[in-house]
């Protein structure tokens, strides 16, 4: 609305100036009419004076016509003047009346304004006004764009600084634990680049490898999108924090079969819905961690109670309680296959591939307003990760636990097979048909009639064999039933 008022005010200035101009023109026009008709003798004079200034013309002509002005009364003249508005035909008496009044500057203005009321005053179009103010919307837009670009540069730099601060604090620990720190997959040989891999303006990756028990560790620094102004504004409504996601891929022989997760209740509920393995193996709702001495904010999702018991040793509890505010979720799983894939019914023919993994998601403190110093507080969490790797290797289920685990897995597989049974049948059927068709085609394409005959005979024999086999099976079943 403010802009609207400014706009109106801005328009008022040129409008009033144009109004004055039109007054002059209109007076000139009126005078021109009367001059042509009645003041032929004064034509030259009137033409010259008209171009200069209409007001001066009025006074000079009045001087000339003073005699005629004094003769008639003003009221009559006003009436005549009004008549002239309506009747254009009248010639001699009217122009005198006009000029009588033109000497009086107030009255002419009043009469002129009476005359001019029906005429609308045209707004000078904005682009002809030649002022920058009329382009205020464009200026606003360009300012917005500049603000966006500024924010992009600032946000990008901040994310960059945060990433490098994190890396500098963690570099030592990582280098002491892993042979290969930093790799971007482009070199043929496995050499440490010692640098973060920038995937995006807000995502940085780091691949570490070369440690006993684990195949490798992928660390993803998922920062907030500080480079996008829209995101910054959205975050003012809904605060969020930077996240550090660590995914450790374990060697097959180094981890036993269990599925276990610890984290904030919200995160666990979400993970249970999203993650394939958690939804299949951990059927219960997340239990409170208070039983094991964890703070109330943390909850546990586990395949079996035994796993929880085994995982929650003193050191782990120490880690979890001290850094509970920074932990979003911790997931150990031997059946990890990522989030549930939204596939159509007909496409599921095989169980998704699983990998033994440990997943950690940490929140960087500061919930958005992080500074590079906050990265130091994440260092103990990395030690927790390393400890967990060793623990996962050491932890073995006892016999009961193993049996339960195996049963669970078998159950899951069976369910899956049942679901896809129909699809697999259809797939097998279609494959058989394809084979038959291919055979027939071959027989048809065979030019040599002899070969054709032989192939046909071979096909017939095969079919007969199959029929016989089927009949045998049926007989056997019948016998068994009996």
């Amino acid at each position, binding site marked *: 609305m403010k*802009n*609207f008022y400014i*706009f109106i005010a801005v328009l008022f200035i040129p409008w009033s100036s144009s109004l004055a101009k039109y007054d002059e023109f209109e007076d000139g026009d009126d005078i021109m009419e009367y001059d042509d008709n009645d003041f032929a003798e004064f034509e030259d004079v009137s033409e010259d004076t008209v171009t200069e200034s209409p007001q001066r013309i009025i006074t000079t002509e009045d001087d000339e016509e003073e005699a005629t002005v004094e003769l008639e009364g003003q009221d009559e003249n006003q009436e005549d003047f009004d008549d002239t508005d309506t009747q254009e035909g009248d010639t001699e008496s009217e122009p005198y009346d006009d000029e009588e009044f033109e000497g009086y500057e107030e009255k002419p203005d009043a009469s002129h304004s009476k005359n001019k009321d029906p005429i609308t005053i045209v707004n000078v*179009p*904005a*682009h002809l006004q030649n002022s920058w103010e*009329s*382009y*205020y*919307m*464009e200026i606003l*837009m360009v300012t*917005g*764009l500049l603000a*966006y*670009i500024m924010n*992009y540069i600032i946000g990008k730099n901040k994310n960059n600084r945060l990433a490098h601060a994190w890396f500098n604090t963690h570099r030592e620990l990582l280098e*002491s*634990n*892993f*042979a*290969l720190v930093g*790799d*971007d*997959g482009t*070199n043929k040989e*496995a050499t440490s680049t010692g640098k973060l*891999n*920038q*995937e*995006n*303006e807000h995502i940085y*990756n780091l*691949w570490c*490898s*070369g*440690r*006993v028990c684990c*195949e*490798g560790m*992928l660390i993803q620094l998922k920062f907030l*999108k500080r*480079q*996008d*102004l*829209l995101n910054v504004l959205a975050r003012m409504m809904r605060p969020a924090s930077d996240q550090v996601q660590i995914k450790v891929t374990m060697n097959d022989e180094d981890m036993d079969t269990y599925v276990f997760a610890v984290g904030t209740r919200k995160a666990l509920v979400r993970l249970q819905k999203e993650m394939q393995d958690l939804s299949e193996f951990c059927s219960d709702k997340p239990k409170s961690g208070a039983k094991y001495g964890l703070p109330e904010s943390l909850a546990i999702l586990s395949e079996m109670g035994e796993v929880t018991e085994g995982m929650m040793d003193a050191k782990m509890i120490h880690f979890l309680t001290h850094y509970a505010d920074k932990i979003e979720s911790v997931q150990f799983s031997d059946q990890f296959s*990522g989030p549930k894939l939204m596939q159509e019914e007909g496409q599921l023919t095989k169980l998704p591939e699983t990998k033994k993994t440990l997943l950690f998601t940490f929140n960087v403190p500061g919930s958005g307003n992080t500074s590079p110093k906050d990265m130091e507080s994440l260092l103990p969490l990395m030690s927790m990760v*390393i400890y967990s790797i*060793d623990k996962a290797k050491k932890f073995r289920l006892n016999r009961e636990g193993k049996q339960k685990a195996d049963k669970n897995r078998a159950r899951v597989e069976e369910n899956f097979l049942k679901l896809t049974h129909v699809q697999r049948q259809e797939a097998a059927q279609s494959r058989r048909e394809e084979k038959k068709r291919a055979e027939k085609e071959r027989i048809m394409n065979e030019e040599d009639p002899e070969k054709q005959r032989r192939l046909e005979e071979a096909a017939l024999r095969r079919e007969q064999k199959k029929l016989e086999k089927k009949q045998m099976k049926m007989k056997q079943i019948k016998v068994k039933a009996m």
Partner: protein
Amino acid sequence: RSPLPLARYKPPATETNPALEDPTPDYMNLLGMVFSMCGLMLKLKWCAWIAVYCSFISFANSRSSEDTKQMMSSFMLSISAVVMSYLQNPQPMSPPW
């Protein structure tokens, strides 16, 4: 804890499907192109300006694996939409209220 034997591969190989995780740059790209075509065809100035914004947002959110050509083409298209709208009609943009 020392690095001992295995100096494994490099992969990261990473993301199964980055498009699934954050479709913003693709949406913004598409929106930008739609708006710039609207602005050009219907001679609407505000469409063209929104197209410029969309292409900027798409650029800011883009992944490193994305084609710069795509970004540049949508950016150029939106700029051309703005320029063409102003050449055809030099009047300043009128606010919609």
